[in-house]
């Protein structure tokens, strides 16, 4: 069964809200990392609209690094986000989702890849840096925010019962 794509307005609205939360949760790096992963991996990718997703991912990367005020040379996270969101969009178009389990599995794979790419790109841009625990919390809480994003993007059909 092929799921219908979420509406564009809804997706952009969620992306905007999540981006704002990423900026606002700067004092809480773990929460910020989770929101960042949610935005990049789950909310931004959209098959057939790679540019808008790429822009959201790039914005998320710049906002995250800008609020961290940690790296001497910014841009690594944005580049990794861009790469991952393009890959995720391509995968969404190439292999359409069929359920929550496949969605979580895809998110897990993309999460691991995203963590590695972020650290590699940041290492290229800013040099060696501590890894922190954000990537681990993102993976650990993946079922939670994966399910949440699934419900937000693909709400259950209205059964008519109140």
């Amino acid at each position, binding site marked *: 069964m092929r799921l219908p794509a979420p509406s564009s307005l809804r997706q952009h609205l969620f992306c905007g809200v999540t981006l704002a939360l990423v900026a606002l949760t700067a004092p809480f790096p773990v929460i910020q990392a989770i929101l960042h992963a949610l935005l990049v991996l789950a909310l931004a990718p959209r098959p057939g609209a*790679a*540019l808008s997703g*790429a*822009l959201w991912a*790039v914005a998320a990367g710049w906002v995250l690094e800008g609020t961290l005020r940690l790296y*001497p*040379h910014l*841009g*690594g996270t*944005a*580049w990794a986000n*861009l*790469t991952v969101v*393009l890959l995720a969009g391509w995968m969404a178009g190439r292999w359409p989702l069929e359920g929550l389990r496949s969605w979580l599995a895809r998110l897990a794979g993309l999460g691991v890849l995203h963590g590695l790419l972020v650290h590699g*790109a940041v290492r*290229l*841009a*800013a*040099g060696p840096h501590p890894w922190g625990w954000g990537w681990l919390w993102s993976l650990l809480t993946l079922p939670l925010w994966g399910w949440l994003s699934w419900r937000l993007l693909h709400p259950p059909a209205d059964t008519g019962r109140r």
Partner: protein
Amino acid sequence: MALRASRWRWSRAGWQRLALVLLWMGHGTWVLMGPPSGQRWGHASEALARPSQGLAARWAERRLAQRDAALSLTELRADRARLVAELEQVRLRATREAPRQAEADEAVRLLGLKKHIPLDLGAARVIFSTRPAVFGGLILDQGLDRGLVQDQGVLVPEGIVGRLWSVSATQSKILPADAPNASVGVMLMRSRATGVLQGLGSGRALIRYVSNQEVVQVGEAVLTSGLDRVFPRGLLVGYVAEVTQGDLELRVILNLSAPLDRVSAVLLLPPQPPVEVQPPLLAPDVKPAKKRGTP
């Protein structure tokens, strides 16, 4: 079938792809330009710029060397001009001082001769020469005003010159030894044979009254004998130039040692000097002893 050229136009998806590619490449480039990469790029650019920097440094050194050389050349030219001017001044000064220097040298030589003759010698300057004329002589700048009298002997360090022939109030005239009417008592140094000198002119003279029995060699020195009471014994007159046998006497011709044509200052012997004088014992020039440790 006619082919119709389709109008080339980018689609919306194409523009989006281009924007994505540019966005991804721009971020990638920016990431690769990070501090470590920047350092690598810096090293690479530094390595690439090293040859041009070397050339620029060499060029700057060359320009600096040229400027220094130009300055040195200018300074050298200025020094050369200054040295040339100084050299001209020195030459001019030397030219001006040359007569005085020659006179001083002559005075020194006369003073040296005066030390060897224990007599009251006077000095006079030759102010004019009439030697080229017949019976010519040398004119001195002193006369009766300085107590000169006739027949005073005149000599220079090289030898005798002649004797005073006439003395006026302020000047005197020398009868040179090569004048025909000059007569100086002489003796040969080796044989001690005596004779009378008779001038032949041009710095030559003939010794009269030397016996045929005497042995005279060419180059033998001829000294004054002191018998004429004008010159004491032992003053150099000249050297034998030619010896020929005569009927009764030897014909001995000698070259006077005194340069009669180039005399500028002379010494005057006192009138009627003793026949023989002993030269004083002069202390040899003692060199100052070197102190130990001095260079």
